[in-house]
């Protein structure tokens, strides 16, 4: 395919580049045509907003628009760092993430290990089918159900009362918010999250178990020495991706669940960005908050990835 170019040495370098380009164009012109809408999409809805993020360094003025508003440097960042909300937002965002890494992250791994031990196939299938379902229920419905079930005469309080406990309006008190958020998150995603680990488990070579049994290892020792090392690469990859998001909590679920009573523990960076930006139309300040957050997240992802590459030789890239 790669016919040697006649007299290639005499060609100037610009000539060679031109020839490579035209050859590329000739073969791939339709491919480029196909990619135009794709590239246009990314420029419009991803790179243009990145360029527009400069309003974090300007004082946004509706009449002047983004690119003519006055530069103010780090004014909005300074205002954010010194505001009363800064530490509260950082604390709430980090705590939800820490609880999520401690409780939500291992849950699907444990579930996968338990499902993997079931040898009665129909039961195994049933457990999988049923535990995947909550994943498909929309977040609006989940939060609607939570609001209803957690109210004083809701399902959860009925169960608590059944066992002789006292009814509590959970969503009205800040001290319960994180528990509700994390527990409902586990309820919704533990089954679906286990799929990935189950597929990793089926990939483990049966001969390893055979060898372990011959060496006299019981079920427990097989789990420790064969199963866990077998799924470790998957766990590490998932953990990197998880730790790379330590400074971000999605706003959707919290916006649906929180209220003025629970703001103290429920308000996170993304919900703050929403309120400041969309509700109070404080565009520059809100953008500064989210830009700071994006940069921190990006740096964290890169460092966790680098750390993992040197420690475990597993990394995203």
């Amino acid at each position: 395919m790669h016919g040697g170019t006649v007299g290639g040495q005499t060609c100037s370098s610009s000539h060679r580049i031109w020839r490579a380009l035209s050859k590329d164009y000739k073969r791939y012109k339709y491919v480029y045509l196909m990619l135009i809408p794709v590239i246009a999409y990314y420029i419009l809805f991803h790179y243009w907003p990145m360029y527009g993020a400069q309003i974090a360094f300007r004082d946004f003025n509706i009449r002047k628009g983004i690119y003519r508003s006055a530069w103010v440097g780090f004014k909005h960042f300074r205002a954010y760092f010194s505001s009363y909300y800064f530490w509260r937002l950082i604390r709430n965002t980090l705590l939800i993430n820490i609880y999520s890494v401690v409780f939500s992250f291992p849950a699907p791994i444990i579930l996968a290990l338990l499902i993997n031990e079931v040898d009665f196939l129909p039961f195994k299938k049933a457990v999988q089918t049923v535990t995947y379902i909550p994943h498909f229920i929309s977040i609006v419905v989940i939060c609607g159900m939570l609001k209803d079930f957690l109210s004083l005469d809701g399902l959860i309080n009925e169960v608590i009362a059944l066992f002789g406990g006292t009814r509590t309006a959970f969503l009205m008190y800040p001290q319960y918010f994180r528990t509700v958020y994390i527990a409902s998150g586990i309820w919704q995603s533990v089954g679906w999250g286990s799929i990935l680990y189950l597929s990793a488990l089926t990939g483990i070579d049966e001969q390893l178990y055979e060898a372990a049994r011959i060496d006299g290892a019981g079920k427990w020792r097989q789990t420790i020495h064969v199963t866990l090392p077998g799924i470790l690469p998957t766990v590490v990859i998932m953990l990197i991706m998880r730790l790379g998001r330590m400074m971000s909590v999605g706003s959707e679920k919290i916006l649906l669940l929180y209220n003025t009573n629970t703001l103290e523990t429920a308000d996170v960076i993304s919900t703050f960005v929403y309120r400041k930006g969309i509700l109070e139309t404080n565009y520059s300040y809100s953008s500064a908050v989210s830009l700071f957050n994006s940069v921190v997240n990006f740096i964290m992802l890169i460092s966790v990835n680098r750390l993992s590459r040197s420690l475990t030789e597993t990394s995203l890239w």
Partner: protein
Amino acid sequence: MSNSGNTIKRSTGERIFRLGNHTFLTFLMIISFYPMLYVLFASFSDPWEIMKHRGLLFWPKGYSLASYKEVFKNRSIWTGLLTTVINLIGGTSINILLTLLGAYGLSRKGFLFRNTIMLGITFTMFFSGGMIPTFLVVKNLGLYDNRWSMILPTALSAWNLIILRTAMLQVPDSLEESALLDGANDFVILFRIMAPLVGATIAVLVLYYGVDHWNQWYQSLLYIQTRSKYPLQMIMREILVTNSQEQAVTTTETGTEPIQTTIKYATIMVGTVPILCVYPFLQRYFIKGVMVGAVKG
């Protein structure tokens, strides 16, 4: 049990573990599914009886369709459903078309700007301009309060693009080469040869995009102002979460208070049943998607 001679005898510890494990998993199944069952039973119950009822529900209390009648009398539910169906069909078609074009282009080996474009797309998975800059772009494009704003800003998912690209990379090059020799151009190769070959993956992506459109509400919260353009989830948000007053007005005849609760349950069923109905048939495709996604792109 027939070959009990071959099976290794379980130790007492293993038997206890097995029993405990099965009990736990059964319990987990109940917890996963009972809330939906409760909503189902309550939605078909008589509102007054539900109000008096204490404890769990194992069957509708005094069967009644009143709540569903109220839900379907609500015009917003119908306009919301219509908007959602339009978004679902139109949005998913655009999603799939763009994903096909992108995945095909970026799975061609050897053209000059492939890696640059790929890097540019991957970067957006880890870094974004943020909510407000994106909001301002949508506004600048004249999409604010426009139905397209529920479709175009999420016209393509980098993650799904990578899944489809991975599938296309596994198709042997010889097919493309022989088609080129036969005088086919890339469009013909993509839609006549490639698309059928990766049909199963496309099915998975249709499902993923489809579920996203059905459950979408946040984009509408940001970009849509006119209530008549709201999708179903936004209407449901009003009924379930923000407790709009509208319901109280429309239900004066049947008695306001008790039916409020059962209307919520009926609304949940209306919004969830379509997905729960297709789920059992498509489950294996959904799962396949996770597996494909696990193969790093």
